[in-house]
């Protein structure tokens, strides 16, 4: 293991993280809801009356973020190495897994750990572990 100093961005990571925490903080304190994106989106798949407006508004905010960001900074060019087939597979796994596991990096990772939830700790360790394992497999065993 070597530190990737070329890509490590300590300050923008911290500041960005604080913005994430701030959003989650305002979401629970103002809206009374956990900022768990797989849950917010999942709830739109089986819409219930009176329960969709807030979800749609939040998702629209996410979708509009790149536009807002571009107003004050140069957009980041993402490095997406996955091909189309892998993207489909990955998407399916994330879709199934987040529903089955009741959360994702925002729900369990940010909010769950902030709530000191043992369930979320187990979930986070599990998806992190799986992520580490898969990347190891792909980059160091199969490459």
């Amino acid at each position, binding site marked *: 293991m070597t530190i990737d100093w070329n890509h*490590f961005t300590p300050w923008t990571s911290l500041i960005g993280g604080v913005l994430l*925490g701030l959003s989650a903080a305002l979401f629970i304190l103002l809206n009374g809801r956990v900022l768990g994106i797989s849950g917010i989106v999942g709830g739109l798949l089986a819409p219930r009356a009176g329960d969709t407006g807030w979800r749609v508004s939040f998702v629209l905010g996410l979708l509009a973020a790149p536009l807002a960001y571009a107003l004050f900074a140069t957009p980041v060019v993402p*490095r997406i190495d996955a091909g189309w087939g892998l993207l489909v597979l990955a998407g399916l796994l994330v879709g199934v897994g987040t529903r089955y596991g009741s959360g994702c990096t925002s729900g369990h990772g940010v909010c769950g750990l902030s709530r000191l939830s043992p369930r979320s700790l187990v979930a986070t360790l599990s*998806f992190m572990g799986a992520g580490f394992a898969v990347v190891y497999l792909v980059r160091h065993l199969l490459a």
Partner: protein
Amino acid sequence: MNRIVEFAMGLLFGIGLILSGMTDPGKVIGFLDLLGAWDPSLALVMGGAIAVGTVAFAVARQRSTSFLGGVMHLPQPGRIDRQLVLGSLVFGVGWGLAGFCPGPALVSLGSGEPKAAVFVVSMLAGMWIFDWASKTRPSLQTEGAR
């Protein structure tokens, strides 16, 4: 009024994701590549988020209503069960394969990235498939927060 607040929260969260580099799968996989050239950034992102979040949830825990007068929807403490672990492992595999999770994928979709679009559609399909399958299979049913 609330709709505007919710939109603003999505906007703020999305901006946080972009600024922190989380919408760049390369950066996420760089963190997951422990044994390679390791980029610790994601750990700092989580750290910064949780530092702020912990304070907020400590306050929220004491309340039954939100500050705007709505219900405080905090999940009940639940069991650590097989669904939680298995589901999280499956999610983690998908996350490691493409470097996308739900939030960043949606933000990236908003920027017009076609690969994010493919991922999001597949993710929605996966969610829908799971919900459909779990209707008739008690073993898949979870306490999942809504």
